[in-house]
């Protein structure tokens, strides 16, 4: 039986190939992660909640809560009050928010204190994407005469 001659070249070639392959693999991984990062803002998941929160805040501000002339920025306290008699699920179906979305509505004064008990819905989760929409209006009637901020939060849970 012939014992193959020992060769010095063998290991060098393998090591060299490994270094080359590793450098290339690193470059590919870094490039892919960079490209993935650049398209992240365009992926759809957060856009939908943004659109929902925008639409909902607009519906509430210029229709459900509006007093008289919808474009005046005046909200009717009595209408807000009666709207807050609804449960959170009734609100969601009234506003066309998909079942699987989380929804929170808070009406606070300029200092951030909640007016009356005008807060509804669970508090949003710590993780995940959340869309917020703020509208500023003047609430009139029922002993509330002040500038208020209507804050809508929508998230996909």
């Amino acid at each position, binding site marked *: 039986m012939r014992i193959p001659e020992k060769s010095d070249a063998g290991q060098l070639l393998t090591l*060299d190939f490994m270094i080359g392959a590793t450098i290339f693999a690193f470059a590919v991984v870094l490039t892919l992660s*960079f490209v993935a990062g650049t398209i992240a803002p365009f992926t759809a998941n957060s856009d939908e909640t943004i659109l929902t929160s925008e639409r909902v805040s607009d519906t509430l501000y210029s229709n459900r809560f509006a007093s008289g002339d919808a474009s005046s920025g005046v909200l009717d306290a009595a209408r807000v009050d009666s709207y807050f008699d609804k449960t959170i699920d009734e609100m969601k179906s009234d506003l066309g928010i998909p079942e699987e979305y989380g929804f929170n509505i808070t009406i606070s004064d300029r*200092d951030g204190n909640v007016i009356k008990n005008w807060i509804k819905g669970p508090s949003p989760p710590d993780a995940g994407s959340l869309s917020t929409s703020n509208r500023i209006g003047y609430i009139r009637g029922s002993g509330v005469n002040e500038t208020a901020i209507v804050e809508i939060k929508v998230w996909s849970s």
Partner: protein
Amino acid sequence: MNDKGQIHTLEGVAATLLVIFATLYAVQASAVTPTSSSTASQEIEMQIQRMGEDILKQANTDRVGMNHTPLKTAVLNWNTSSGKFEGAESRFYYRGRAPPGVLGETLNKTLSDKGIAYNIDIVYNRASEGTHVFPFVDNGDPSDNAVVARQVLLLYDDDTLGDGTQLVKDDTYRIPDMSPNTGLYNVVVVRITLWRI
């Protein structure tokens, strides 16, 4: 020893450079990337603009116990003896601070406290010379991503300035009577420029 050793390493480096340059080229070639201000902050810009619109709109509604709406009260808060807006210091307009009163409080609480800066300008008409503009609140130069909201305001001859002088009887006010023969005094546009700081 074998001298073919370096070939694969060099191939690896060459391939790496190729991939990196291809990516860079692709990124450069596309006009819009997430880091261009237009897409990254579009949503924020829209929200800020709507806040500006909401603030002006709700400030232009009647309040209990006030002669004029908060917006009109602020615009008419002129001190005839000093020739400045009431409370303004070095100039006739407000520099680096909000105007006093309801409008100013709202601006402070809803904008300044949330890291949004704003300038307010007033555009008014001159009988035959078109429109003119002067600053009302000046908080510095807006950034490139600033947005604008407007509200039209009608001033009448019998509206009163902050110190009780009737508008038509005063000649120190910045805004002239555009139509001396009618009860209308001027049509002004209150223009707010908002940007994030």
